[in-house]
C-alpha cells in the first residue's frame, strides 16, 4: 500500500485535533507536517505537528474547552486546568503532553494575518476529518523567515562565543 501523508499522523494527535474541530477552534497545520504534506519530505516524514491558532478570546476559550473535553474523554488530566485566555495572546506555545501528543500549539500572527493564511490554506484529510494546511506560498514565506532568524541566531551565538573566548584569554594573559 502506498504511504500517504495522513498515515504519518499519530492516532492520539488526530484524536486531539478532532476535539478542536468539535469545539470550532480554527487551526492551520504548518511547519514540517505542512512541508511533508506538500510532498517536500521523503516518505512524508515529520517529527511533530505545528498547529497555528488564531489569538482571539473566543477561540482561546474554545481551545481551553476542547483541551479539557479531551482530558475528560481520556479519563485523565491531559494538562492541568488550562489558563482560559492564554492563547488570546501572540507568541504563545504549548505542548500539552510531550509523551502522549506530538503537537505544538502556537499563536504567531494577529487574527487578520491568521485569517489571510486560512483563506489561502489547502484542505487535507485525516481519516474522515478535514483539516487545513498552510498554502505552499505562505509556507515558503514562513520558511524564509525561519532560515534568516536561525542563521542570525547562529551568527550571534558564534560571535558571543568568540568574544567570551578572547575576553577570557586576555584576562589570563
Amino acid at each position, binding site marked *: 500500500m502506498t504511504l500517504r501523508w495522513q498515515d504519518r499522523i499519530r492516532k492520539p494527535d488526530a484524536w486531539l485535533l478532532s476535539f478542536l474541530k468539535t469545539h470550532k477552534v480554527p487551526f492551520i497545520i504548518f511547519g514540517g507536517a505542512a512541508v511533508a504534506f506538500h510532498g517536500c519530505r521523503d516518505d512524508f516524514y515529520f517529527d511533530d505537528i505545528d498547529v497555528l491558532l488564531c489569538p482571539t478570546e473566543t477561540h482561546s476559550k474554545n481551545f481551553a474547552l476542547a483541551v479539557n473535553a479531551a482530558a475528560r474523554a481520556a479519563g485523565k488530566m491531559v494538562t492541568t486546568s488550562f*489558563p482560559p*485566555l492564554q492563547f488570546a495572546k501572540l507568541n504563545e506555545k504549548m505542548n500539552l503532553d510531550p509523551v502522549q501528543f506530538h503537537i505544538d500549539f502556537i499563536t504567531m500572527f494577529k487574527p487578520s494575518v491568521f485569517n489571510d493564511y486560512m483563506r489561502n490554506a489547502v484542505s487535507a484529510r485525516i481519516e474522515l476529518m478535514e483539516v487545513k494546511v498552510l498554502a505552499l506560498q505562505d509556507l515558503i514565506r514562513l520558511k524564509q523567515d525561519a532560515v534568516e532568524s536561525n542563521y542570525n541566531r547562529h551568527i550571534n551565538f558564534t560571535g558571543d562565543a568568540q568574544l567570551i573566548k578572547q575576553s577570557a584569554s586576555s*584576562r589570563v594573559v
Partner: protein
Amino acid sequence: MADSHSKIRENFSNTKLLEVLAEAGVPVLVSGRVAEKFRGCEIIPSSFDFELILKPDLNCAVGFTKALGKLLRDFGLQGGDAQDAAKLATADFRFKPFPTSEGIDILVAESGLLFEEMLSRSTAMDFEGLSLLTLSAEDIFQLKQKYADYWYKKYLKHYADLQRLKEKLASRS
C-alpha cells in the same frame, strides 16, 4: 484566575526563585550575563540575566518542582490556581532546552556527568546575598558554542525544506 496570574507576573522575581532553590538544596549552576560579568567576559552589560543549569536527575527535578510549588504557595495560590500559575511561571522562565530571549532561562544539563564536571570547575559568586555557583569562562564559552551549533543545525534543516518547497512551486508553474 487572571488576578492570580497578574500577581505572579508582578511579584515572581528571579531572586525569590534563587532563594527557594538554595533553601531546598537544589544544586544549580549559573551562566548567562550575570556569570559573564562575574568572569570578566561580559559582552552586553546586563546585571540580571540568568541561565540556571539543573542536574538531570530525579532528586533535582523533585526538589525544583517542590521549590517552585513552595514559592507559589507563598503567594497564596492553591490547587488549580497554583498549577496554572506553575505552568505560567515555567513558561515565563522559559523552561526549555535553549533560551531565546533575556530574563531567566532554566536549562537541564545534557548529562549528570557533564553537570558534575561543570560543578567541579565552578566558583561561588555573591549575588544579592546569595552564594551562587558560577560556570567557568571555558564552560560559558562551550555553552555559547553549543547554542551556535544548535541554531546552525536548525538553519540547515529549514534551508533544505525551503529549497524543496521552492522547487515544488517552480514545478507547478
